[in-house]
């Protein structure tokens, strides 16, 4: 009897404390945040005009915090299926380290603070886009599409495509063709990136009842569609050169990277095991990082 009481206290102790600082940082999905921040920074750097360095830092901070806050709200909403998947079962809410309501409050407060700060420090076009990206991720992707359609990450992927457009708007106060092209780059990059993950995590998604394309249409159809998206991305990635926001180094780099991405998709299509899909997932992250690094490098060199 006494031991039973002590065991319960040991379990409830951390939950009553509401988790550690590290758990709250984990709610912000820091690994996802890094690519979001980098693409947002790239949009800001290549945009015409000059931005005070501190204001640029504030803009990047707002994009990072809003992205993390949307991730926390996503973890609050998806806590039931997160507990069922190996990849997400270790997150703070399914582990009982952070109460679900606290995660939701944490996400809402940070979203409001980051959008308000963006509007006051930079401009309300950037703040509006930031709010739109967060709303799209939470309401359109997480709550509406994710559990209903295999096109969840195709349409929902728009949420992750906003950061360079937000960065551009922070610097210029407007939306232009060039910023829409940067948006389109990430939009068309998202399906092959996530489907590569979904192929080698298919059983996880199947177990949780999430209708990812490999679960619903099978791996062969998914691989075929991944190849189509990489083939669209190959010429699309050269567009920044023709719009004057990327130089020759960017043009050459985008063609090489695009060719390698297509090669990854072909290798995945031809293979029966999951190794090429894992390689493609890893390369897709490197691809987007290098593409935006080339844009930044080209801009700083000229």
């Amino acid at each position: 009897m006494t031991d039973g009481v002590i065991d319960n206290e040991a379990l409830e102790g951390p939950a009553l404390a509401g988790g550690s600082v590290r758990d709250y940082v984990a709610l912000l999905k820091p690994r996802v945040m890094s690519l979001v921040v980098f693409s947002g920074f790239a949009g800001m750097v290549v945009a015409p005009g000059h931005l005070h360095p501190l204001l640029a830092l504030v803009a990047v901070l707002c994009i990072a915090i809003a992205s993390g806050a949307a991730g926390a709200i996503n973890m609050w909403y998806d806590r039931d299926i997160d507990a069922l998947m190996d990849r997400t079962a270790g997150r703070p809410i399914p582990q009982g380290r952070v109460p679900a309501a606290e995660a939701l409050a944490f996400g809402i407060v940070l979203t409001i603070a980051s959008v308000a700060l963006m509007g006051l420090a930079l401009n309300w076009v950037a703040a509006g886009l930031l709010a739109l990206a967060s709303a799209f991720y939470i309401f359109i992707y997480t709550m509406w599409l994710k559990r209903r359609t295999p096109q969840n990450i195709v349409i929902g992927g728009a949420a992750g495509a906003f950061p360079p457009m937000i960065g551009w708007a922070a610097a210029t106060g407007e939306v232009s063709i060039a910023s829409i092209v940067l948006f389109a780059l990430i939009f068309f990059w998202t399906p092959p990136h996530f489907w590569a993950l979904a192929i080698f995590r298919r059983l996880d998604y199947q177990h949780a009842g999430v209708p990812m394309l490999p679960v619903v249409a099978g791996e062969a159809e998914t691989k075929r569609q991944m190849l189509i998206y990489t083939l669209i991305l190959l010429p699309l990635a050269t567009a920044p050169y023709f719009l004057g926001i990327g130089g020759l180094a960017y043009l050459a780099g985008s063609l090489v990277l695009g060719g390698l991405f297509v090669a990854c998709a072909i290798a995945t299509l031809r293979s029966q095991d999951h190794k090429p899909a894992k390689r493609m997932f890893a390369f897709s992250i490197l691809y987007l990082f290098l593409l935006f690094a080339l844009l930044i490098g080209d801009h700083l060199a000229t």
Partner: protein
Amino acid sequence: MTIDGIEMTQKPARRHGADTEVHRRQRGKNLATLAALLGFVVLVYFVAMIRMSGGSFP
């Protein structure tokens, strides 16, 4: 010592251990919240200075 026939001799010592852990986590979160709020205030101050100076601050 018994309460309603339940042996309580070991409970205070063990509860103290759990309370220490709860307080340690709470203190960590309080300090992180303090740092975030102070950072926010400093940031808003400098943003206001930059906006009022038309971008020429400092």
